[in-house]
């Protein structure tokens, strides 16, 4: 399972990466593998403000519909327009070309409980046994 060490994770299977242009959010390799082939992404509008833990958008795979939750409070500054035509990017490259939204965090920053790679690994292992 691919879990880059430089990312933060949530128990709801999002990852986030801090950068100069804000916080980039996507779903984990584990999440895309559980979802199986993603066929539709209902992207939010840029400018929308979300609280930490709010639903950002939904994904549809051949198996189910899943919701993406904001790991951090802030304004959505960009969405990955390519996902409209190529939702398969979420399966092929979840940490790269398959990013979903970018958020400009509020100050002071408010996040959900974040996990590091080891913490997230533990969380999905206990979920599998549950």
């Amino acid at each position, binding site marked *: 399972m691919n879990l880059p060490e430089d990312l933060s994770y949530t128990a709801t299977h999002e990852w986030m990466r801090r950068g100069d242009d804000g916080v980039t959010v996507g779903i984990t390799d584990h999440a895309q593998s*559980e979802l199986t*082939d993603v*066929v*539709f992404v209902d992207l939010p509008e840029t400018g929308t403000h979300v609280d930490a833990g709010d639903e950002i958008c939904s994904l*549809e795979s*051949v*198996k*189910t*519909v899943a919701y993406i939750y904001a790991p951090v409070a802030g304004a959505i500054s960009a969405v990955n327009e390519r996902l409209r035509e190529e*939702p*398969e990017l979420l399966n092929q490259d979840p940490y790269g070309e398959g990013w979903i939204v970018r958020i400009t965090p509020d100050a002071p920053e408010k996040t959900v409980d974040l996990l590091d790679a080891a913490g997230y690994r533990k969380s999905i292992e206990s*979920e*599998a046994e549950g």
Partner: protein
Amino acid sequence: MSGETVFEKSRPGRQTRYISPRAELPASYREVPEDLLRAAPPSLPELTEAEVVRHYTNLARMNWGVDVGFYPLGSCTMKYNPRLAEQIASWPEFSAAHPLRPARAAQGWLRALYETERMLSELCGMARFTLQPSAGAQGELCGMLMVRKYHRDRGDSRNIVIVPDSAHGTNPATCSLAGFQVKVCPSGPDGLVDISALKEMLDDQVAGIMLTNPNTLGLFEREIQTICDLVHEAGGLAYYDGANFNALVGRFRPGDMGFDVVHLNLHKTFGTPHGGGGPGSGPVGVVEKLEPFLPTPLVRKGAEGFEYDYDRPHSIGRLHAFGGNALVVLRAYVYLRLLGSEGLREVSGSAVLAANYLKHRLEKAYQPSHAGRCMHEFVLSAAPQKKKRGVRALDIGKRLIDLGFHPPTVYFPLTVPEALMIEPTETENLETLDAFVEAMLQIAREAEENPDLLHEAPRHTPVGRLDEVRAAKELDIRRRPNKEDE
């Protein structure tokens, strides 16, 4: 068999006498203005009658239904449709009656509708029912619009509806469509509504709760009266999604549990055919305080017989022309009269017994979502098979097709990983249930010994595993038989 469509089988000049595109137009059609007439005849396929009959008969033989074999599609309640109901619904006295016929000339029809309403009200512990909604989904919308109007007419703007995380997807969708905001209430480890979480969510903004009982895991919400009481204390209403009423019919009444609104899917409890696109029927019952909001018209008993009651100033309005999908309602009427209250008790009893038998026999080979007894359906998880051998719920379902059974519902409810949801209904005999158990146990062994067999299933069907990604992404299924039609 060949996968050719009727368009591909068509040959110029072949025809069936009475459906020929070259037939003379009736005189009345000649009055259509010249500029509205098409220049060339439509490019209908040209085949002989025998070719058409074979084409559709062969397609029908590839289909699966309750008339072909066991169909344990959990949550969908694939009930047998008694032939007597079909026969009576085909009588011209019912099927050929014009809906605009005056009430005095339609007393038989109105009596059937009136008595169906009375029987459904009695079974659910409700004051009255509307038979108008075209299907369960429209029934839900009807119910929630009444909830909305109830609050608005009291000058109350509460706008939140609580839905448990195990609910059917239609419940949150209905809330959104009816203008409510949805809040999801988590289940406890026992699979039932978490009462303390519910208490925290209840306030003066909560318009109501939508609940299925037994819930989607096939578990009876034991604290249902407490749940309804709590919602009522907060000023909200309790909505009963009747999708699982087949587990309770004739034994428990939603009204006695504390519910204010009920929708029923007639095909899921009263033996009418599954819609598959229509027509369906989703009657909605209400307690007395919501009665003024029911759609108009209702059928009532007047001094001169049965009549339509249009004088309903607080009604949410009309949802369907005339009496709804009346021929579906009529089938349910026959079913109710055929079985009676004792027969209906046996329906729910046998449905629950069959599910418990299957659960008991399968829960060593597959991991049950919850230990102990279930109601009319239960959920197994293929998570252990997936972890050990990479065999998913989907693979198990596909392999069942090879062994002559319709697969259970997979990947629902969302709260159980690799879910297989099994609902046998009340009409299967012990031999069929045992044969299904043997097939499931065989698949569990195959998952250990030869997982590739499952990954490649189905092998014995006209087409193998379908490309679900392409089916979901390329929704354009319109055929363009000729270039000029593009």
